[in-house]
């Protein structure tokens, strides 16, 4: 009766497997959803800002103004639209920026005098605004050369940049492993978040408790089948990343498997803890989605870098398993990071797994006290 029995855990696992098999929708989702979402969004997400629409009010109509517009469209970043009311176009989102060229612009330029134009931009999306501003100096230099016929400026200092690990700056290479982390983690939480709550609601938990099965055996038995299911999903995602997107895999597969196992255990335990604590499926779903979906999308470093957050939140993110697996997955895929480089993320994942598992077990045991 006492001690951990693999046999009894196995029985619980078999029961859970039957649950999943009986529900083909959940099974298909668990296996197919990750690879579907990774493939779709890996293809869809693109961070590069291009085709910025500039509404131009040309009140000068001279040759220099015409040349300036040509420089804008030839830069490849801007798409020039003639407009009578450029600010109205900004209000209605039909343009991202407006350029005002006042009468006298061409006269000044041809006379060799400094000429000015007004550039108004929509700053409501601040990152897009910053990109537009960054393109302006290049336009200025090109205009100096073409309109005034000046030689390219003398540059005493220059920077030559080499991009390591992703020389073509493909955003897919870093998005695809990131997406995989988020989707796998969420799926793992969602799958287990219901398991125990469901048994409480159906009343089958009392039945289970009257058998000699011990809490640890129930927990292991409930985690193992879902772990296997999610790991199979990871395999499909891996294939998609390599074959569809051509993401390089520089690191060790064994290390990646270890990181995956640690991360999946952490996420499954998080779901299980929620399930044990909530006891009600609707509450479990709420907590699972609130604690899973948004934090893992927004605070894991998936898109918004953790290092740019205020210090307090950099520490706060440490309790999120996806934050650590994000570093590990991108490192192993793109940089070929080894055990030495990933010691901290892996240790953190292991610690979080143990902590969440212990919490679930403890909560479960207190619930069983008469």
């Amino acid at each position, binding site marked *: 009766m006492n001690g951990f029995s693999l046999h009894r855990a196995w029985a619980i696992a078999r029961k859970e497997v039957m649950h999943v098999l009986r529900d083909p929708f959940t099974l298909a989702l668990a296996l197919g959803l990750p690879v579907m979402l990774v493939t779709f969004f890996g293809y869809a997400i693109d961070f590069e800002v291009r085709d910025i629409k500039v509404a131009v009010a040309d009140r000068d109509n001279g040759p220099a103004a015409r040349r*300036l517009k040509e420089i804008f469209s030839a830069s490849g970043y801007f798409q020039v639209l003639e407009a009578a009311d450029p600010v109205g176009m900004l209000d209605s989102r039909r343009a991202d920026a407006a350029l005002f060229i006042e009468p006298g612009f061409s006269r000044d330029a041809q006379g060799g005098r400094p000429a000015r134009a007004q550039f108004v931009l929509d700053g409501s999306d601040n990152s897009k605004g910053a990109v537009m501003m960054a393109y302006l100096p290049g336009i200025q230099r090109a205009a100096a050369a073409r309109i005034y016929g000046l030689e390219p400026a003398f540059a005493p200092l220059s920077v030559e940049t080499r991009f390591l*690990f992703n020389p073509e700056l493909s955003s897919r290479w870093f998005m695809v492993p990131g997406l995989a982390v988020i989707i796998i983690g969420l799926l793992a939480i969602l799958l287990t978040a219901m398991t125990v709550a469901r048994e409480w609601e159906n009343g089958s938990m009392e039945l289970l408790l009257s058998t000699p099965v011990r809490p640890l055996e129930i927990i292991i038995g409930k985690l193992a089948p879902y772990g296997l299911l999610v790991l199979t999903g990871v395999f499909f995602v891996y294939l998609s990343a390599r074959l569809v997107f051509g993401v390089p895999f520089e690191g060790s597969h064994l290390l990646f498997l270890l990181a995956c196992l640690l991360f999946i255990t952490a996420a499954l335990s998080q779901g299980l803890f929620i399930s044990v604590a909530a006891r009600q499926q609707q509450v479990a779903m709420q907590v699972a989605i609130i604690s899973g979906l948004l934090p893992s999308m927004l605070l894991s470093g998936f898109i918004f870098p953790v290092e740019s957050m205020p210090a307090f939140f950099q520490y706060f993110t440490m309790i999120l398993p996806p934050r650590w697996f994000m570093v590990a997955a991108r490192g192993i895929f793109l940089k070929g990071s080894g055990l030495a480089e990933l010691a901290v993320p892996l240790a953190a994942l292991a610690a979080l797994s143990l902590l969440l598992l212990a919490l679930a077990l403890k909560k479960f045991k207190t619930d069983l006290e008469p």
Partner: protein
Amino acid sequence: MNPTLKAFIKKELVQTLRDTRMRVLLFGAPILQLTIFGLALSTEIKNIKLAVFSQPGDTAAVRLAEDFYSSGWFKPSVFRPGEDPFELIGSGRADAVLIMPAGGLGRAAGRAEGRMQLLVDASNATKARVVEAYARTITARAAAAYGPAPEQPLSFDVRVLYNPAMESSLFLVPGVMGMLVCLVTIILTAMSLTRERELGTFETIVSAPLSDAEILLGKTLPFVLLGLVVFSLVLTAAHLIFGVPVRGPLWQLFLAAFVFVVTTVSVGTSISTLAKNQQQAMLGGFMFLFPAILMSGIMYPVENMPAAVIGAAYLDPLMYFMRLLRSIMLKGGDLQVFWTNVGALALMAVFAAGLAYNRFKQTLD
């Protein structure tokens, strides 16, 4: 209104709100999340770990390194002299390494040959692009020390509209608001009918003296109401905590929120009629929420999506709501933008409500 329907709606509200945990999750969690995400998230890249490799005694290089570190974007990375720069980036101890010319920067710059090499960790491509742009800006400024910068004959007066300080919170907070309202309404509704069916209380409701449409109304109206309450809460929080302006009229804001909430409540109700058990309902809710959030335009510009898949974004109600929120709050609510997006949302609301009604009737039979 039919008194039975009124009683039904009241019962639904009482049932949802009587659990303390539910009340906390419903009203407390969105405000907490708005605060956390609003404070933590920024699209500006900061704290880039930079290592500067220079010869000992190269004062010009030290001065340039100071320029980098005092810009607020870069911070020094710790390394030992003689370490391999590639190794430094590979291990993640530096995001970028700046290698100064061998003969000293000052002398090289005097001969207009001050060529430095910048190694950037591009495993995050967007970040790498920003790091390069920062480095160019700082060196261009530093170049002024080696002779006057050439006068640019042509110059732009730059003016930034709507968000002159270019704060990311003004852009991100309305987005987070939309996400939270979407999340709450889907969570509330995706399970409601599935749960009644699992518990067997569905039969009791069906036997009430109400028409199908009235039952459906009783099962959705309370959640539309709760969705609007949550919206008002996060709107107040966004305004008070983050100073996000509301430049457009309030009626636009609430009409947009109403149409949006009707859409998501209908989607959630459809999910709950389609799902066989609560686990399916939850997975269904996730299958809607995840793409809806990713394609809403809060994380990356939707217009950038390849033509083959951009159609999917136009099916995302959250994308329209996000556009409406940003347009009304930041730009004062251009009427044309307002009616096109509200129209698109209304179309979706009608479609989703029709689907929910249809599915609901089938469930009843």
